[in-house]
């Protein structure tokens, strides 16, 4: 059974259709990479998956729980959010919390863990991203790369079934991208299920078990990295990839 199955997910803002009926299935251990032009609805799709934005309609099956997306309730929201985690483009660390507290908040208030256990897990996760010496630093005292790696530690500490990455490197200085990519690579190697939105094509090709080309609120093409990057069905994929290649 798939970990997550979405059928005909639609999202409207005012009268504008942002997501126009998205079908998506992800199995345990898979890494789905979503590529596509800016403004195509990739971030909106991620935020609809964990209900940070309310979908207009559609169906979801998460670990066997059927959810009617038109009739979301608090239980559905918490079910999704407490089994998933998200890494944001602009890090979105809690500004009033230290690096350690940024990680423990979700464990204490989301997973209802006691503080000592939460601290132990947070320290372990900070160690994993080589930032245990920054445990008492506030986000404003950290570099962008360090903030994003703490964002990743905050996500992995929750031991989620699925992590959603929203362009995790696009706000970083070029020399800081590598460390964040390494952390995400490590997660993929450990079998973590992920959906990653990125503009880094070499990274997408290497990490993705499946690539989705997203444009105009729809999946226009999908397949293995080899298929999408070498023999795409949709001509727009070729145009998009060659435009990106020219930018480099």
């Amino acid at each position, binding site marked *: 059974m798939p970990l997550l199955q979405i059928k005909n997910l639609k999202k409207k803002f005012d009268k504008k259709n942002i997501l126009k009926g998205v079908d998506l299935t992800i199995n345990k251990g898979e890494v789905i990479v979503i590529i596509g032009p800016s403004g195509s609805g990739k971030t909106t799709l991620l935020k609809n998956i964990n209900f940070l934005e309310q979908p207009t309609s559609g169906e979801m099956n998460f670990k066997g729980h059927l959810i009617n997306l038109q009739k979301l309730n608090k239980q559905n929201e918490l079910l999704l959010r407490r089994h998933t985690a998200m890494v944001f483009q602009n890090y979105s660390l*809690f500004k009033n919390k230290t690096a350690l507290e940024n990680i423990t908040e979700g464990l204490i*208030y989301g997973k209802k863990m006691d503080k000592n256990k939460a601290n132990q897990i947070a320290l372990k996760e900070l160690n994993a991203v080589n930032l245990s010496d920054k445990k008492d630093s506030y986000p404003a005292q950290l570099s962008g790369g360090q903030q994003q790696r703490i964002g990743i530690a905050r996500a992995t500490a929750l031991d989620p079934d699925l992590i959603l990455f929203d362009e995790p490197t696009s706000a970083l200085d070029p020399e800081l991208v590598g460390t964040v990519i390494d952390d995400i690579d490590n997660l993929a190697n450990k079998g973590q299920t992920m959906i990653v939105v990125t503009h880094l094509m070499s990274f997408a090709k290497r990490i993705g078990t499946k690539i989705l080309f997203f444009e105009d609120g729809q999946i226009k093409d999908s397949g293995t990295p080899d298929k999408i990057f070498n023999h795409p069905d949709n001509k727009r994929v070729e145009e998009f990839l060659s435009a990106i290649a020219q930018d480099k």
Partner: protein
Amino acid sequence: MSFTGTVKALLAGLPSTLFILIVSFILSSIIGLFVAWLASQSDKFSRGLAKVYTGLSRGTPPLLMLLLAYYELPKILQFVGINANDWSKYFFAIFGLSVGFGGYMGEVFRSAFESVDRSQFEAAYSVGMERKDVFKEIILPQLFVIALPNIQNMFLSFLKATSLVYVIGIADMYQDATSLANVHQGVFQLQIFLVLGVIYWLITVVFDYLFKLYIKKHDYI
């Protein structure tokens, strides 16, 4: 009339001034937080209520609020069967100032709330936190720090507004200065009020310093 004698006489009213200042400031902050919360609701009734109260509170002089609290509130309470005739003048002073300044505090908190980065909500919800915990742990502490410079301004305005309580006969520093000037038939009036001004100024310097220390400690946001 000696300088130290004047200072001593005026400082006799300091506990009253500080008591009214602190209690009414805390209460107006609570009112302000509630009004800011009402103003952030999606339903028109709550937002309308917040708007009307804020308009009235900001549009009327604090002196009028104090007089209304002292002379009219007992009548309203009497109407609902509560006898407030023997209640302390401090109650009415604190009530008048708190309600009079609640609208200003509401605006301080509302603007701070709107300045909290929306991504902080998303990040908190994404780790499975519930709304009440998101507010308690993430939003309110940030809102408070953002609002601090305005809270500091309001606090100092409040300090000066406490001198109005003399109109309902509370012996604060201003009332002490008036009495002292009257005792000397107004001969030393200028000197007495200059000393009073210096005392108020010194209190603002102390509170200003304390606020700055606190803001410096929280400048990581």
